[in-house]
């Protein structure tokens, strides 16, 4: 009964949650980009998408709606690349019709997340990124409770620069403290936009809010990621992000963040 003790997560080295109190700040985008940057750094990465009411990762990674297979150990994740270095599991795979709304109340979501967390046969992974819906409610409690049996290295918080967003993220920080999840750092997304016509940089959603928040709460500031309409467009068209992303301007910003994250994860190993 060794498996039931640590289960399918026994060969997963690090578990990182991607959180934000605010919706639409780019949790799924940052999760996807971080995962790609980590695979480029030679790591095996998994993404668990627990946003039951609005799963976006399958579309971003262009995996479509594959059949999810089962094996003895549980559900087999879907691989986004041929080398099988990027594994993915999402509620999106289990829906019959992609327009279908998952109108579920908390208890049902909690039950599914419990299963998600323990029944996916991840195999060996260096990092498992968990993409979450906005807020501090059922899904978050369920993830933290179910992963606690294993271990959670910590959380990366995503915010946009404006005060309306950092205000919600402050609440998420309190959530992390109350549930004893370590904050690995804060990422400021949608930080500035360079006009493609005149190269003037506009701060559409203000600037510097993420860094300020990090200072205020004594957290690490991992870096800021600019708005990149070219990348959004390519992703939306469903172009292969595995190829497009390393050529984009966002890539440098993200790989710096990924490296900082990796060294802080590996640092805890040696402790």
């Amino acid at each position, binding site marked *: 009964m060794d498996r039931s003790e640590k289960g399918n997560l026994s060969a997963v080295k690090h578990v990182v949650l991607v959180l934000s*109190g*605010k*919706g*639409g*700040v780019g949790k*799924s985008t940052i999760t996807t980009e971080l995962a790609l940057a980590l695979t480029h750094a030679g790591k095996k990465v998994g993404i668990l998408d627990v946003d039951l*009411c*609005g799963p*976006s990762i399958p*579309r*971003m990674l262009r995996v479509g709606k594959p059949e999810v297979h089962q094996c003895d150990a549980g559900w087999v994740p879907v691989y986004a690349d041929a080398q099988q270095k990027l594994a993915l599991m999402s509620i999106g795979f289990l829906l019959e019709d*992609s*327009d*279908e*709304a998952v*109108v*579920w*109340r*908390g*208890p*049902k979501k*909690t039950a599914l997340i419990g299963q998600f967390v323990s029944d996916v046969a991840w195999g060996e992974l260096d990092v498992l990124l968990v993409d979450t*819906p*906005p*807020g*501090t*409610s*059922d899904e*978050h*409690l369920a993830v933290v409770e179910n992963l606690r049996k294993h271990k959670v290295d910590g959380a990366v918080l995503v915010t*946009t620069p*404006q005060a*309306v*967003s950092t*205000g*919600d993220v*402050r*609440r*998420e*920080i*309190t*959530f992390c403290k*109350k549930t004893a999840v370590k904050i690995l750092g804060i990422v400021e997304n949608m930080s500035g*936009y360079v*006009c493609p*016509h*005149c190269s*003037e940089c*506009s*701060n*559409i*959603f*203000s600037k510097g809010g993420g860094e300020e928040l990090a200072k205020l709460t004594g957290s690490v500031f991992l870096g800021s990621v600019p*708005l990149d*309409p070219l990348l*959004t*467009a390519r*992703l*939306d*068209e469903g172009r292969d992000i595995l190829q497009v992303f390393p050529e984009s301007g966002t890539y440098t910003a993200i790989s710096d963040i990924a490296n900082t994250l990796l060294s802080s994860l590996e640092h805890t190993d040696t402790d």
Partner: protein
Amino acid sequence: MADVPSDAPEHCPGTNSDQAGQSSSCQGCPNQNICASGAAKAPDPAIEEIRQKMTSVKHKILVLSGKGGVGKSTFSAHLSHALASDDSKEIALLDVDICGPSIPRIMGLEGEQVHQSGSGWSPVYVEDNLAVMSIGFLLSSPDDAVIWRGPKKNGMIKQFLRDVDWGEVDYLIVDTPPGTSDEHLSIVQYLSGAGIDGAVIITTPQEVSLQDVRKEIRFCKKVKLPIIGVIENMSGFVCPKCKNTSQIFPPTTGGAQRMCEELNLPLLGRVPLDPRIGKSCDEGKSFLTEVPESPAAVAYQSIVQKIRDYCSSHSASDDPC
């Protein structure tokens, strides 16, 4: 389905189901007799209480989106401001985003507290004819997180509807969190007796957002909630320096326009991105009075007029005056 208590035994058929109290999983449940007697099937008495409370509220509008961060709260706040610019109308704005209440900041009411009176909780007033209620007013510090599961959030929403002393109101605007879950089911359920005029759906132009918004539309159909129309927010950005428009969130699949055509819904309008909107939200001021001549403000006003028209034609049938 939706009526399974959070502490119910596994495979609970739900308190409203025909099998309540009778299925094999009900064996040993302490509430088996209550369920079997049918008492749990009766509608929540709060629905009737809320219906009575809401007789003084003429129009009720929900602001919804499956996607987060598309501008629901910004729109709700500015819709309220715009409606309240008519002094003869009374406007109420209710924020049911329990985990991420943004309305207090956008309305410039951070740090305000709710007062208790004999007739219930008093909302916070921005202007004489604009009342606001949010869980943000019940928190003691901006760091306070509301880490609540569904049933507790539902209880709070019930209290907001039943126990807040709104007074005579022409328009009640309800701002919601993203998704299709507890908060949404609750607000629709609790207002089912009182009747909702309709929902305004907010989206941004890119497919990742539309994908979630289609789910929200499906939700409205499931719960038989009329849709007033769809608003495309963050639609294009005009560079303040060279005045060229660029698409920050490109409508690669035809944007809201195509979606509305496919689903046969009215598109109420498009609102361009304008850094001044975010700035005035952060400062708690109304964008509409800060920069009334900007293209975004003009778009807002035209959308608000369409919503006014919808509501007046809507009430003409059941309200002869």
